[in-house]
């Protein structure tokens, strides 16, 4: 399991600041909903594919994986529209959602987590007036992305250990025998992580981190 979708390439899309990419993504979303015509929507989809595959030089598999993840939702929407309204509306809706899903995939595949986090910190900057430290919000997001796969991995290990001893890993019993030891492990992990954050200077964390690119 991985939540880190960044694909390193030396392309103009990768070099574009994360804030601009998110703004373009927001603009595209407004455009395909405000002007729901076939030329505009299909043009947006083609543009996303050209930017992703040609300009950013992302592997086709990266975009295909994202499209596949929403395939059944798109099929269901198309069928519903075909039955309840008409095929053209169904086609438009499907193309619109596909363009947005792929555009979001292009943004995430060309933007480091730290750059995204820096944007979040900038957006949260006014919250400092009510005592919130934007850098802390950024750290929480980065840590969520880091630890979700780790916790999933630990849950798998617990299930394997239960199965190796003949325990059930399915149903309500399987859930409880997994959740309780997982909670204990997560709490122990949280304690050590908090020590590690202290040891690495988390108390010194600046209001906002400023730069993004690490290496």
């Amino acid at each position, binding site marked *: 399991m991985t939540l880190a979708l960044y694909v*390193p390439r030396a392309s103009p899309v990768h070099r574009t600041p994360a804030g601009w990419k998110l703004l373009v993504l927001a603009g595209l979303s407004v455009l395909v909903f405000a002007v729901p015509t076939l030329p505009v929507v299909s043009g947006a989809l083609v543009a996303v594919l050209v930017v992703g595959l040609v300009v950013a030089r992302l592997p086709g598999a990266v975009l295909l994986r994202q499209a596949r993840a929403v395939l059944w939702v798109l099929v269901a929407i198309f069928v519903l529209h075909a039955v309840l309204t008409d095929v053209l509306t169904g086609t438009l809706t499907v193309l619109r959602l596909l363009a947005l899903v792929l555009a979001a995939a292009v943004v995430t595949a060309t933007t480091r*987590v730290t750059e995204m986090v820096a944007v979040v910190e900038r957006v949260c900057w006014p919250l400092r007036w009510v005592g919130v430290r934007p850098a802390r919000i950024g750290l929480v997001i980065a840590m969520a992305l880091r630890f979700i796969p780790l916790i999933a*991995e630990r849950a798998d290990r617990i299930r394997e250990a239960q199965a190796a001893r003949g325990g059930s890993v399915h149903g309500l019993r399987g859930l409880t025998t997994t959740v309780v030891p997982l909670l204990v492990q997560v709490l122990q992990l949280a304690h050590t992580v908090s*020590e590690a954050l202290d040891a690495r200077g988390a108390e010194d*964390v600046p209001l906002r981190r400023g730069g993004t690119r690490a290496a």
Partner: protein
Amino acid sequence: MRLRREVTAPIADPARGIELRGVGHAYGDRVVLADLDLHLTERRIGVVGANGSGKSTFARLLNGLVMPTTGTVHVDGLDTRTHVREVRRRVGFVFQDPDAQIVHPTVAEDAAYGLENQGVPPAERAERVAEVLQRYGLAGHADHPAHLLSGGQKQLLAIAGVLVMRPARIVFDEPTTLLDLVNTRRVAQVIEELEQQVVVVTHDLDLLEGFDRVLVFDDGRVVADGPPDRSVAAYRTLMVHR
């Protein structure tokens, strides 16, 4: 840009090393360390002892992760109670489980974390991260998800994340416990090559070869303190009579 600064600028004296005077520590009623009077100035110091002997708590005292219940700990003349941030900048800490130490999703981002906290400018940060990743054979993994690294690579990343902050001293808490033989040797080599003062808590007695001083802990007290051969012999005798 820094939110808070320590009220008074500390005056550090690196020649003073790490000093523990009358140190004890208890978790509630359970005493885990007692009567520690130590002056640590040697470059490579090992710490051994049975499970539960107080080694890890001792290690955490050295950079202010744990505060003494009695007595004082000074690093370069700075009291860990009153100058904990400055002490932590001087004393890096490598944990047993690198998964708990890696807090960012990708390798380069995690290596940069400590530098971000120190307010190091982005250009210098990138340069130092690239240098440390190159040094530990992780340059080709800079943009990879950290959780996909092997156990040995994760421990090297954890060490890189500390070394990039350029601390004067580094404490290792059982750095090879979760590693195979090849990676144990690699981490041992990394420790051997460090110019900083290192304090290594370990069960791996081979790791202590060439160290200047080894402390043996038993039931929260130092029961042997000397060169590795003498201390390791004392430790073996202690374990045989358990």
